[in-house]
């Protein structure tokens, strides 16, 4: 059981800055995120793309922003629980008992949901029969590549994951790479490499094709792919891999009794608390009149939610407003030596 003042759900920029604000006012926190690294959408969707509207930062990338936020909260030694999704929430007297998908448990005074648009999950094939094979001979991510040795693998997608795995697996497996158009979104060097391998007969590239159906008994045996113009090809396959990026799902948050409005959580603008006492929501996941889905708005929301958490974490103490420039206590928490 991890006992801390506040549990932050989501390690995107908003969650990270909220951790900073909690640290400044002397509260402890831990952060849970479904992804394998901090940064949220900034890292998952646009690590290299520039952002131009962070106050006093004329230009930075999603990755730079994340790294700077991590540096900013370093003094507080915040504990991260990555690859974990919060599943269960129970009120236990004045505190919350929280459990994650991996069985990590927390005992906290307050919860801040900074979950973006939900947790990232792989996008799946639209073909219904795929579900039957998922996790056995059809995958959306690779955990153990050794199972593909000397097998026939059909890979679907045109981004870096699809290209990288097609190139790597072509060394030990028979690879079919299927993509819906001639263009690819992966890096040019990989696209060239795939085309070379195709020319050398080390890989079979099918463009303008999409999945039509999969069949097999317990394991996949064949995959049918359909061309834009209607032509259908049947290809033998032991395994099917789909790389269509990630989609965001609100998931278990829907069952926590919060007022949900179009996939977002309603909050008040005084301290960004939801209709449930002790549960706050900030960043893209919260909604209120005038809400802007900007990172800077998330920072503001996090600062106020952190102060909202104070009365739950330290009910007998009074929070006094201070500036980091002059507050001795805040500077001590930041580890500044004078």
């Amino acid at each position: 059981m991890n006992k801390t003042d506040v549990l932050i759900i989501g390690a995107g920029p908003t969650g990270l800055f909220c951790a900073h604000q909690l640290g400044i006012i002397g509260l402890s926190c831990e952060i849970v995120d479904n992804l394998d690294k901090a940064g949220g959408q900034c890292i998952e969707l646009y690590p290299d793309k520039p952002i131009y509207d962070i106050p006093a930062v004329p230009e930075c990338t999603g990755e730079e922003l994340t790294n700077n936020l991590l540096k900013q909260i370093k003094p507080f030694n915040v504990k991260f629980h990555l690859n974990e999704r919060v599943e269960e929430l129970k009120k236990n007297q004045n505190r919350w008992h929280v459990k994650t998908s991996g069985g990590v448990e927390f005992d906290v005074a307050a919860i801040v949901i900074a979950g973006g648009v939900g947790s990232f999950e792989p996008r799946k094939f639209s073909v219904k029969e795929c579900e039957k094979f998922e996790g056995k001979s059809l995958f959306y991510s690779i955990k153990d590549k050794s199972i593909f040795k000397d097998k026939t693998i059909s890979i679907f997608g045109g981004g870096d994951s699809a290209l990288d795995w097609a190139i790597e697996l072509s060394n030990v497996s028979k690879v079919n790479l299927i993509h819906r158009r001639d263009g690819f979104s992966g890096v040019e060097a990989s696209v060239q490499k795939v085309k070379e391998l195709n020319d050398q007969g080390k890989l079979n590239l099918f463009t303008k094709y999409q999945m039509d159906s999969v069949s097999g008994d317990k394991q996949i045996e064949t995959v049918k792919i359909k061309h834009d113009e209607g032509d259908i090809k049947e290809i033998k396959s032991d395994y099917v891999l789909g790389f269509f990026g990630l989609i965001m799902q609100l998931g278990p948050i829907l069952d926590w009794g919060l007022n949900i409005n179009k996939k977002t959580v309603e909050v008040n603008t005084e301290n960004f608390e939801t209709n449930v006492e002790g549960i706050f929501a900030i960043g893209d996941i919260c909604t209120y009149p005038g809400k802007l889905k900007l990172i800077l708005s998330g920072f503001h929301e996090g600062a106020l939610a952190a102060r909202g958490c104070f009365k739950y974490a330290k009910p007998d103490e009074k929070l006094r407003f201070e500036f980091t420039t002059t507050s001795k206590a805040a500077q001590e928490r930041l580890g500044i030596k004078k």
Partner: protein
Amino acid sequence: MAKITYHTHDNKTHTIDVQKGLTVMEGAIQNDIPGIDADCGGGMACATCHVYVKEEWLDKLPAKEDGEEDMLDMAFEPKNNSRLSCQLIVSDELDGLEVNIPSKQG
């Protein structure tokens, strides 16, 4: 205002006057038309505002910018007439546009 017609997956048709300058995505969101999620809010970063444009409109729409086709690779059942509705800005030229909303976005 321009009239945009959204055909939703439940076989309903919604014809809406959308203010010029808004996107086809925003027209749907503001009028509670089901089936367009627009998770990223219009940043061409999620492909959950994917629509199928009625064939005769395909050539009349502004060309796709870099990135839209890449993002469409991620969409649910993309076709040749797929577009991201956040990239279609409503103007006089788009008056009468009809789009079909897919059965789901992911």
